[in-house]
């Protein structure tokens, strides 16, 4: 490659030397130095840039084409020759440079001719410049002053010349207009990156071709004027390679900005910022970044969603570049196909992006941080403004109270109209910096809103030709407000969800507000209907309202908080017992008021009452039992012993006088004694069956079953339970069996004692007539008390005709 360029360069130098020789030895060139200088500038700028482009992109024929334009122009200097034949060739190919230029222009930037129209244009250009010129010369005997004779003259024909002139003008017009049309179409279709490449060439070429057209047009009127314009054409011509160079230079500049990009990418927070940074550097706002997730085998876009890479890259005019890091594909850039022209730049950007992605550790981590960032952004009610370069407010998003002026006077105004000079400068400079560099710009500013100084942190990002300013307040006031708000929410939640009843009243006892728990209890909503009403009228049952009202009135005077218990109105016309007290405090306006706080103790009261009743019954039952024992002892054993004692005395007295009678007395005394013993035994067992403590529940129940007048099946667990539980279970079965025998008309009874979840479960089921009322007899009531005293429960099922089932559950401690 290098050798070829060197060869061409050598050829160019040799040709230049030849051209210089011809110019300075010419006997018909009036101003060889000037002409030579002009030609050399044009020729060498084309050759130089052509070779430069060729060296940069050997595959692209545009470089050689550019160089060819230079060489073609050089051929024009053959017409300086004093030799007639050489002069004739020079006269024919003098304009070849323009045709090659058109060729190069239409082949730009790819290096080849794309469509048939373009091919036709280029062919026409060559035909007009060389073919028509040759024919024209063949019919034109005249040459310039002092020039050699026309060596190719066929005949002098005015008509042929005119005809050929018309052909030339038509051909030139076709070429110029067609080229202009093709360039215009290409410009319209070009993406921004492509335009950046096309712009300098197109601009200078268009100027050159326009001047050329003008020169041709003017030549019909005045050859002298036309000659003057030709100089401009040449000058314009010379700028084309310069423009091309400028384009190349711009790519160089863009590459320089890759270094900046690396810094920017490394500080990019999230995929979208990364994508924006890459897009900004490559000048392709539609660029898309897709990141490969090796765990899930999918591409995700910068927005975190799934990305259809195939569809994106199939789109017209898009191309993809894989971003690799340490040999692994980590991402893909989907960009404008024109960026292929700047392969090096794209690769450099890709490498930087790979570095940035790798910096995050893993892509997954990146996604997580992206998620966090997004969550933060979503959660924070940010203030957002859209500005143009001039600092005009185009749009905003946020609360109007965070604005310095009302929204309607904001939009369309400029920052400098609204904000103090310094602040406005600060913001507008940031906006411009963001728009110009595409980088994220951050800064703080302070504004006075409604007389309060407030601090905002601004993040400014480019969005097309505009910038978006995201402002977040960090004023101390704001922080305190937020804290206060949270605290208030917390207290409100606590107050509403606490089981306590809260009501605030003023000094006259009028309701200010109350909590949800009280709403639920009373069935009254905290609203306009209730507020302002006297507390006692709304919440206290009528016959205690006076008492409460007096209490509250005296509180206002004494300010003391006392404990009270009253019946409050409950939802649905019921009432609840509430223990309440009052605390003086200030309401939200700072006025003295009272907080009434109470708790619904209805259930506790009922429970206490039930407990008291049950205890009373147990005591009464105990008393009754003792009375029964006393009576039984008194009426039974004691009586018998007394009569026994009498009989013994009588027997003693008769022992000598009437031994037979004494014997009879002793016999009956013995009988009496046996009965007394039997009665005592029964009494003792009634007080406590010895077998229960000696042998446990199963043996004791067996004994009960043995005495029962009907079949009793016993199934009892074979483990000892705490004595009170055993005793309770025993008496449940004993009482139940007694009831069965008395009322049930049953044929059999099943007794089961099991253990379930730490409770002894005693079940006595008969197949009798049912219909037992658990609360009617003192027996069952007493059993329930005994069981409940041990925190157990007694349950009676006794549907008529379906037998009776008594079930006691007693915790085993």
């Amino acid at each position, binding site marked *: 490659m290098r050798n070829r360029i060197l060869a061409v360069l050598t050829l160019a130098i040799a040709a230049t030397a030849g051209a210089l020789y011809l110019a300075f030895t010419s006997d018909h060139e009036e101003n060889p130095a000037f002409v030579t200088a002009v030609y050399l500038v044009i020729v060498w700028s084309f050759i130089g840039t052509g070779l430069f482009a060729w060296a940069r992109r050997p595959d692209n024929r545009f470089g050689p084409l550019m160089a060819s334009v230079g060489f073609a122009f050089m051929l024009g200097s053959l017409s300086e020759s004093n030799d007639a034949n050489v002069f004739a060739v020079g006269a024919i190919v003098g304009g070849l440079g323009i045709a090659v230029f058109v060729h190069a222009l239409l082949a730009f930037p790819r290096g080849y001719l794309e469509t048939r129209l373009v091919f036709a244009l280029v062919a026409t250009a060559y035909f007009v410049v060389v073919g028509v010129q040759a024919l024209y010369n063949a019919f034109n005997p005249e040459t310039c002053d002092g020039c050699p004779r026309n060596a190719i003259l066929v005949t002098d024909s005015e008509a042929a010349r005119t005809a050929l002139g018309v052909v030339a003008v038509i051909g030139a017009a076709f070429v110029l207009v067609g080229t202009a049309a093709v360039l215009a179409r290409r410009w319209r279709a070009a993406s921004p990156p492509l335009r950046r490449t096309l712009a300098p060439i197109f601009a200078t070429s268009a100027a050159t071709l326009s001047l050329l057209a003008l020169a041709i047009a003017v030549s019909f009127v005045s050859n002298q004027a036309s000659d003057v314009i030709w100089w401009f054409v040449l000058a314009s011509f010379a700028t084309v390679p310069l423009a091309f160079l400028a384009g190349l230079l711009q790519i160089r500049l863009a590459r320089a900005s890759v270094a900046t990009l690396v810094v920017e990418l490394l500080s990019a927070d999230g995929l979208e910022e990364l994508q924006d940074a890459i897009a900004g550097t490559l000048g392709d706002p539609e660029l898309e970044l897709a990141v490969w997730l090796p765990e899930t085998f999918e591409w995700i876009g910068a927005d975190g969603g799934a990305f259809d890479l195939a569809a994106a890259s199939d789109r017209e005019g898009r191309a993809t570049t894989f971003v690799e890091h340490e040999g692994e594909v980590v991402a893909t850039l989907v960009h404008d196909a024109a960026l292929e022209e700047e392969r090096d730049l794209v690769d450099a950007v890709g490498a930087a992006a790979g570095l940035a992605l790798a910096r995050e550790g893993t892509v997954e981590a990146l996604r997580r941080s992206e998620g966090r960032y997004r969550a933060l952004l979503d959660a924070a009610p940010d203030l957002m403004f859209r500005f143009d370069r001039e600092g005009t407010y185009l749009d905003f998003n946020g609360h109007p109270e965070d604005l310095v002026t009302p929204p309607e006077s904001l939009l369309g105004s400029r920052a400098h109209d609204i904000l103090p000079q310094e602040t406005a400068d600060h913001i507008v400079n940031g906006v411009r910096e963001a728009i110009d560099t595409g980088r994220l710009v951050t800064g703080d500013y302070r504004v006075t809103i409604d007389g309060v100084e407030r601090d905002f942190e601004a993040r400014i990002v480019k969005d097309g030709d505009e910038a978006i300013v995201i402002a977040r307040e960090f004023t101390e006031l704001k922080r305190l407000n937020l804290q206060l708000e949270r605290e208030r929410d917390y207290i409100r939640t606590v107050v509403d969800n606490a089981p306590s009843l809260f009501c605030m009243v003023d000094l006259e006892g009028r309701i200010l507000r109350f909590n949800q728990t009280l709403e639920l209890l009373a069935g009254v909503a905290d609203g306009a209907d209730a507020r302002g009403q006297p507390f006692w009228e709304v919440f206290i049952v009528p016959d205690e309202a006076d008492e409460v009202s007096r209490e509250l009135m005296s509180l206002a005077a004494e300010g003391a908080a006392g404990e009270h218990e009253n019946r409050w109105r409950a939802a649905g016309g019921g009432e609840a017992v509430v223990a309440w007290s009052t605390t003086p405090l200030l309401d939200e306006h700072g006025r003295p008021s009272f907080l009434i706080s109470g708790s619904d103790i209805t259930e506790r009261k009922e429970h206490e009452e039930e407990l008291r009743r049950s205890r009373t019954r147990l005591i009464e039952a105990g008393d009754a039992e003792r009375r029964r024992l006393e009576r039984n002892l008194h009426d039974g054993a004691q009586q018998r012993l007394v009569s026994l004692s009498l009989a013994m005395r009588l027997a003693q007295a008769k022992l000598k006088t009437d031994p037979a009678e004494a014997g009879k007395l002793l016999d009956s005394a*013995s009988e009496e*004694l*046996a009965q007394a*013993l*039997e009665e005592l*035994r029964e009494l*003792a*067992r009634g007080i406590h069956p*010895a*077998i229960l*403590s*000696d*042998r446990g529940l199963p*043996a004791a129940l*067996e*004994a009960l*079953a*043995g*005495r*029962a*007048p*009907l*079949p*009793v*099946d016993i199934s009892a667990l074979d483990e000892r339970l705490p004595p009170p539980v055993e005793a309770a279970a025993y008496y449940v079965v004993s009482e139940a069996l007694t009831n069965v025998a008395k009322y049930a008309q049953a044929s*059999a009874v099943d007794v089961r004692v099991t253990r379930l979840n730490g409770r002894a479960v005693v079940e006595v089921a008969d197949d009798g007539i049912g219909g037992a009322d658990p609360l009617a007899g003192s027996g069952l009531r007493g059993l329930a008390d005994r069981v409940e005293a041990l925190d157990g429960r007694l349950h009676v099922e006794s549907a008529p005709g379906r037998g009776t089932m008594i079930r006691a559950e007693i915790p085993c401690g």
Partner: protein
Amino acid sequence: MRVVLAEDSVLLREGVARILGEAGFDVVGQAGNADELMLKVRSYSPDVAIVDIRMPPSHTDEGLRAAQEIRERHPTVGVLVLSQYVEPSYAMELLAESAEGVGYLLKDRISDVREFADAVRRVGEGGSALDPTIVSQLVGRRRRDDPIDQLTPREREVLGLMAEGRSNSGIAEQLVVTERAVEKHVTSIFSKLRLPAASEDHRRVLAVLAYLRS
């Protein structure tokens, strides 16, 4: 017949000892608690030990446990437990494995000296004695589909006496019938209750009790 007597109430113990002495028994030792009882039984090798179920220190069932210990360690010594409870399960514990030389009587029985002496003698001779109250409770217990219901009143009486541990002659004497008649009743009872016939009295007792308890 040599007797050791264990009863914590001195008055009752002396009274029982006197009754037994008058009835021709030789009371070789008296004890106030279970340890003393075991010592006396070991020392005197009596024919029968009469034990109160409730003794110090806990006054629950020391006597019963001592009785079981005697039966294990000194199988030749008959044991008669005296109790104030009409609880079949105590008696059954005692009679669980064998009815040989075992008795369980309510203390009330002492007052009927002849019956009491008879029971002590039966136990001392390797027979058994179960209190009629306990037996009547066992027999009277209601069962589903009870075959006992098929027994005649007389047969039921015979069943009870068998359970008390009496021999055929004892039953005959009690009911004032011939031994032959008793044998007929016994055969009828065993077939009605589908029990295997047993010749020896103590085995018969066990079979009957096992049936009654089931």
